């Protein structure tokens, strides 16, 4: 099965409100042709509503949807030419696998002679050859997922929408299907807009990720950008795990890093992003795995920051060990690879934590109601 390539997708101020409640507030977004973009956010963030507006099941209150250069906001769903995979697969229970996959061909008036070979090729693509005459109820969850994928792609749409497609699968199968979906997407070159609330899934699969909250885009960027340079505390917290430090800028070091004074007068240094003025109150995020536990008597090796605290809790994760360290009234979480050597501290031990200034990411101005202090 060859794809027809992907189409560019652009949202221009797309909004939806129900009565007085805003579900999606003016979302603008440009997805390149062939790109894999994920809408990520907690439930109620507006990601599914956005997808449903693109699919045509929810009428937007404002804005436009462009597929390549064609406006489709007022086009009925069956004329948008988008493939879609639903959360619960939405296979037609009264149709065989073959009838399910041939359904879009039939509806779109493809010649009957092409149905069978195309169905066969689609099933091959999702690695279910020979399953034509089964009924959906005779398939496992993963197999149903594959059939749904085959059905969504058989008519060669240039954009594929996926609404939490792997939510119902167990972890192993989910990881396997993530790879499968990526493989097929690359092979066909189709543009994918993927909705999930699972940040790990988003990080693994996406070219770029849209983090949404309360109907707005919090940040749009590559997985690396989102992880290494979260725009705000919400993104820093939602993607991966973060320690949050707040403080006042007291000065700048010769290398350009900012000198901050945190709660309790503790000082630390951070790499500023953009212009930060002395005297400004700022928040910073610090990934747990960036904290290094220093052995007794060990000197810091280039880390600008080093705090001492008491181990409050140890969480064994298998491949890693998580420490919760109380530094005065702050609690920092540190994550160390298992088998790094050296003794694992016990709760109550006094330890020192070191980290580099450029791993301390200054966050954008905290929004009202946002918790920018210590978690």
């Amino acid at each position, binding site marked *: 099965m060859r794809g027809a390539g992907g189409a560019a997708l652009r949202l221009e101020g797309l909004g939806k409100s129900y009565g007085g409640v805003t579900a999606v507030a003016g979302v603008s977004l440009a997805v390149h042709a062939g790109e894999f973009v994920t809408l990520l956010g907690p439930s109620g963030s507006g990601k599914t509503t956005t997808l449903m507006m693109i699919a045509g099941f929810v009428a937007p209150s404002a804005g436009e949807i462009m597929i390549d250069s064609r406006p489709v906001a007022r086009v009925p769903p*069956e004329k948008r030419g988008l*493939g879609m995979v639903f959360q619960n697969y939405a296979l037609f229970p009264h149709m065989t696998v073959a009838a399910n996959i041939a*359904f879009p061909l039939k*509806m779109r008036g493809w010649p009957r002679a092409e149905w069978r070979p195309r169905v066969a090729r689609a099933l091959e693509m999702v690695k279910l050859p020979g399953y034509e005459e089964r009924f959906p109820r005779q398939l496992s969850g993963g197999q149903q997922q594959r059939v749904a994928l085959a059905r969504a792609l058989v008519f060669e749409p240039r954009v594929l929408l996926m609404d939490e497609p792997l939510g119902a699968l167990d972890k192993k199968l989910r990881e396997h299907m993530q790879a499968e979906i990526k493989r097929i997407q690359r092979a066909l070159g189709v543009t994918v807009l993927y909705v999930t609330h699972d940040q790990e899934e988003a990080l693994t699969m996406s070219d770029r990720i849209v983090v949404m909250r309360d109907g707005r885009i919090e940040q749009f960027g590559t997985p690396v950008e989102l992880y290494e340079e979260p725009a705000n505390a919400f993104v820093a917290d939602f993607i991966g795990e973060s320690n949050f430090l707040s403080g006042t800028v007291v000065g700048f070091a010769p290398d350009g890093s900012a000198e901050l004074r945190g709660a309790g007068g503790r000082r630390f240094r951070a790499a500023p992003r953009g212009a930060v003025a002395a005297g400004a109150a700022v928040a910073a995020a610090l990934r747990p795995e960036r904290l290094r536990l220093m052995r007794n008597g060990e000197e810091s090796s280039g880390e600008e920051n080093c705090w001492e605290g008491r181990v409050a809790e140890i969480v064994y994760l298998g491949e890693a060990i998580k420490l919760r360290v109380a530094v005065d009234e702050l609690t920092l979480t540190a994550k160390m690879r298992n088998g790094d050597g050296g003794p694992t501290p016990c709760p109550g031990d006094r330890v020192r934590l070191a980290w580099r200034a450029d791993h301390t990411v200054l966050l954008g101005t905290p929004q009202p109601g946002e918790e920018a202090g210590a978690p």
Partner: protein
Amino acid sequence: MSQSSPFVPATAAAMGRRSRRPPLALCLLLPALLLLGFVFLYPMLDIVLRSIAAPRGGVSLAHYGKIIAQPAYLRVFLITFEIALSVTVATLLLGYPLAYVLVTARRGIAAAIMACVLLAFFTDVLVRTYAWLVILGPEGALNQVLRALGSAPLNLLYNRYGVLLGMCYALLPYMVLTLYSVMRGIDRNLLQAARNLGASDWRAFRHVFLPLSLPGIAGGSLLVFILAIGYFITPRLLGGAGDQMIAMVIEQQVELGVDWGFASALAIVLLALTILGFLLYDRLVGLKSLFESKI
């Protein structure tokens, strides 16, 4: 209780050892089976025996002979099936869109429609039928409206139209509720999926919703048909001489204490014909094949 009580361990041991005990499910079912046997099978048997009992003891098929010999009774059976079938088709045609609106409309509208449907359900059948007498009469509400509009009055009482109107109204809730329960179970995502895959509104309905609602159509039709076959109050009050249904004849034979044997024979023939019709329906229509589609 002391630990020396032998009861608990002994029972547990016995349960472990004896494998031929009646399963628990059967024990739990027993009261229901007994009740069914008593309130259903026993009277059924009684009716069969009555229908073949000779007046002075012994067995006689005279009652059945009379049904065959008197063309009037066969005609009544025919009329009964004719009316029941018409009512089934009419309630389906009326009830399907109603049920569809019920599952698709906004909550307020759906609740209002449901209330209307259930209102008809909760009113006594006799009261409803008398209401039809008032509405359909030559001086009734309907004809007064027609006259005001300058149209000729309609003769809807004491003929087949009256019977069909009254029975459709009485049986519509059964059809609507059966359809509604099936339609509500249809995943709305499937319709969206169909639209997304290129089906127009109508084709999504035709290829997805309609086939999935077939169990409701079959169930509702069967229910209405079987209920309609046994109707007698409505045809009795709203029908004319040509609208004799078999239950009216049975009721007359029973109520006036005339001939319970003959009434039993009529009931048995009705039951046999109904079962036969059902088997034929199952054979000819073959629900399963209708339900499933391949390419």
